[in-house]
């Protein structure tokens, strides 16, 4: 279909849909002033039942933990798909040189970049670990912490250049971390089955409220998510950066 044809069809669809959507907007419950029964239930139950203070983590890792298992599986599928598409076509090389676009020389690594990168990367990784560890008490958790750790490791790329970074980031490690994370999450859920309890039952001691190690099984599920998210995102970073290297003979450009 031509561009004008597509646009015409879109305008026609908008003409039909906008009155319906407007009716929907008018029929929505009043913003900020409607009852939230599920929220009230969780906010009342989780601090007393699970001894945690972060309700979002309580939902993610306990009350709706099986959703997170599905979500972890989706993450692995998406990362595996991207890896198969990229690494499967190209292969892997640790010692290759970065590629170069014609007439655009690669600038020399500046010492300021080296210093800032080497300082910022470990601090960012540490901050990510802090966010992931305190998932049960204060805002944070495995999802946010895992992404922050992965971006901290990407900062090393700015400091070390392509070759140095690629030597540090071994894909077997991060492939393994991602798989381990999802397996740990599933095993944490399965642990209750031999005791005759339903999947993902929280069987560990809950600990003290406002303590980092509160929440029982949620600590393990939180760790599993942190490993899976960090591993998954670093695998994606490795694959996309390997696309920029010089291809050796026999590899598809």
């Amino acid at each position, binding site marked *: 279909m031509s561009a004008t044809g597509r646009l015409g069809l879109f305008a026609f669809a908008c003409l039909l849909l906008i009155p319906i959507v407007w009716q*929907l907007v*008018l029929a929505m419950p009043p913003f*900020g002033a409607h009852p*939230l029964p599920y929220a009230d239930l969780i906010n009342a139950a989780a601090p007393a039942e699970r001894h945690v203070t972060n309700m979002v983590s309580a939902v993610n890792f306990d009350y*709706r933990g099986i959703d997170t298992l599905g979500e972890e599986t989706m993450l692995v599928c998406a990362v595996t*798909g991207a890896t198969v598409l990229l690494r499967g076509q190209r292969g892997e090389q640790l010692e290759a040189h970065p590629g170069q676009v014609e007439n655009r020389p690669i600038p020399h690594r500046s010492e300021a970049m080296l210093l800032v990168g080497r300082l910022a990367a470990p601090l960012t990784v540490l901050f990510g670990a802090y966010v992931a560890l305190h998932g049960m008490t204060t805002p944070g958790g495995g999802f946010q912490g895992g*992404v922050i750790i992965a971006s901290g490791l990407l900062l090393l790329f700015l400091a070390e250049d392509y070759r140095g970074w690629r030597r540090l980031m071994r894909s077997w490690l991060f492939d393994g971390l991602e798989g381990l994370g999802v397996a740990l999450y599933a095993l944490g859920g399965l642990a209750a089955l031999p005791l005759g309890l339903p999947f993902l039952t929280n069987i560990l001691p809950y600990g003290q409220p406002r303590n980092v190690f509160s929440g029982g099984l949620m600590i393990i599920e939180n760790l599993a998510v942190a490993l899976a998210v960090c591993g998954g995102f670093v695998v994606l970073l490795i694959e996309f950066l390997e696309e920029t290297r010089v291809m050796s003979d026999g590899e598809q450009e």
Partner: protein
Amino acid sequence: MNLLPWIVVAWLMLAGLYGMITSGNIVHLIGCLSTVQSATYVLLLAAGYRHGAGAPIFYTHPPGTPAVDPVVQALVLTDIVIGGAVTALLLALALQLHKRRGSLKPDELRALHR
């Protein structure tokens, strides 16, 4: 004011759809898809909002303080992470498309000739 969040949701969704339909580049199209997805974040967070309530974290406030809905926040949290991974998958597809067909313009990508 009461209608503003829902209007923002509809507007983000429409703006993303318009971008996808008129897009001249697959990478731009993937960006527009992310815009459509962000409409769902606004919708979920707006649905869980409550006037005068704080975050659903009872570290400094005792349990029982009015708090917004933690369920939709957990949904948005996982949605964002999944969105990032799916965007990476789509970009990997776009990269392969460019290697094989030499173009990312939807109009230049016709069905394969047999």
